[in-house]
């Protein structure tokens, strides 16, 4: 017997809604748990004071600075490099052996576990290049880790811009590079931003890579050549050795708020950029 399309639709919608509800529910549970457990212990002094007494006392100011610096370095490297790669793949070449190789490399890199990036960064940046445990070593290693995410999302975003936009620009005398910058990139920004935001998220949450390459110094870093501890590492150390669960969750809560602020800023910037481009 054939089921009427309307019935199928009702069943499908129901299933989709259930899936959405459980996915969102699970995620809300995680955030809610951390915020509920952590925000109680967050205060102004917690945000501004140095880490004292193995993390049981004082605040997490050095970890906040460390996190921001690390994100700045890693995204500052990975975003331009990744977007440039995506432009090459989507706009400057056609499918062939070379793109297949590059794409394969990107896919594999996406699957390389973070611990391997950590060991790689430890040997290459910390030891061979002599950068030591530093924000720079950490940022470079993290950049390598988030590169595939940025490339894949940026490439998808570029490809989703209608071909006709490119034709129009070219027929008006745009060079290849102008076609990209004037009639493709502006419309791919939302998608590219998704990738960058996911990349920021991964940089912020990563622990294994950071411990091996940026170290976990408790002092506030004053330059990219100093060792630094990120909030994720701080949480990990506090929770791992069972030092202070309160401060661990408070750190995680601050971490979530930081991501919230970064993401909101990014979205606001994007909307400002896109205003006037969309139909009213």
């Amino acid at each position, binding site marked *: 017997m054939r089921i009427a399309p309307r019935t199928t*639709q009702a069943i*499908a919608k129901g299933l989709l809604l259930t899936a959405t509800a459980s996915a969102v529910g699970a995620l809300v549970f995680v*955030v809610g748990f951390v915020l509920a457990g952590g925000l109680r212990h967050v205060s102004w002094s917690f945000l501004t004071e140095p880490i004292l007494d193995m993390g049981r006392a004082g605040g997490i100011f050095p970890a906040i600075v460390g996190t921001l610096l690390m994100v700045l370095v890693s995204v500052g490297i990975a975003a331009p*490099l990744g977007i440039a790669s995506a432009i090459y793949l989507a706009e400057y070449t056609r499918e062939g052996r070379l793109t297949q190789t590059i794409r394969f490399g990107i896919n594999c890199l996406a699957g390389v*576990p973070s611990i391997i990036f950590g060991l790689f960064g430890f040997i290459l940046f910390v030891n061979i290049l002599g950068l030591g445990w530093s924000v720079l070593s950490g940022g470079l290693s993290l950049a390598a880790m988030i*590169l595939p995410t940025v490339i894949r999302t940026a490439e998808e975003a570029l490809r989703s811009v209608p071909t006709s936009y490119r034709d129009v620009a070219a027929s008006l005398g745009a060079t290849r590079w102008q076609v990209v910058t004037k009639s493709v990139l502006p419309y791919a920004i939302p998608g590219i931003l998704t990738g960058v935001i996911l990349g920021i*998220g991964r940089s912020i949450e990563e622990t*294994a890579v950071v411990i091996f390459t940026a170290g976990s110094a408790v002092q506030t870093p004053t330059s990219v050549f100093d060792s630094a501890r990120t909030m994720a590492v701080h949480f990990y150390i506090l929770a791992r050795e069972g030092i202070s669960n309160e401060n661990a969750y408070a750190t995680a809560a601050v971490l979530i708020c930081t991501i919230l602020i970064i993401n909101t800023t990014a979205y606001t910037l994007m909307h400002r950029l896109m205003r006037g481009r969309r139909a009213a």
Partner: protein
Amino acid sequence: MDKLVSRLLLLAACSSAAILALIALFIFKEGVPIMARSGLGAFLLGRDWSPLQGQFGILPFIIGSLCITLGALLIGVPLGVACAVYLAEFSSPRWVNILKPAIELLAGIPSVVYGFLGVMWLAPLIRIRLGGPGLSILAASCVLAIMTLPTIVSISIDALQAVPKSYKQGSLALGATEWQTVWRVLFPAARAGILAGVILGMGRAIGETMAVIMISGNSTAIPHSALDSVRTLTANIAIEMGYATGEHRQALFATGVILFFFIMILNGAALRFARRKF
């Protein structure tokens, strides 16, 4: 000038392949000798991992990685894609604008947080309701599925939204229901983007270390059910690297080599599957 730009972009595009090559070179250099010494067969198919006694068999970890990744995908992909479809096609734009950034936010929650929550909530739940030690394949798959959700949902929504509106209108105009339109028109049109999200999510699942260490129990025995504890290849590296020296350390790098091939095969399979299916 266009030539110069083209060259620079090519250089950028090659960087990720170059990084991959560097990483490969470095773990192969450390890992291959021990595999050669103990024999590839013995290394891959050995069931006994006692590095301090010179026993390096990683079969249980290969099985562990496979089970957990598969489990995470089985739970995470339908859930994530369904969530994306619902948000992109059936809910009001206002909800998408709130929920999509909210879900992306979750990509930034440290995996160790997920791990701790898993140990404190999920593992006891599974132990009491379903039996076994709690720290198990099932628990790890659930935690990883939740961790991959932000990647899959977020990228899939982008892919669905990038499908031209005219496709949808065309299909609806032919008398298709909304669901038929989504299933027969939008979904195939967005599949490349959705697949990109799934591959990235899968990469995250295979590559995840810290959370898996906490939640999977890390037993070195071969599992018999989803309620048994396992150790993944990544966990094996991360859990012991801090203390490993000499041959033990080399064996961990060799685990990395196998992991490397493992990821390449999975990627190849995913891409082939994507080509054949549609």
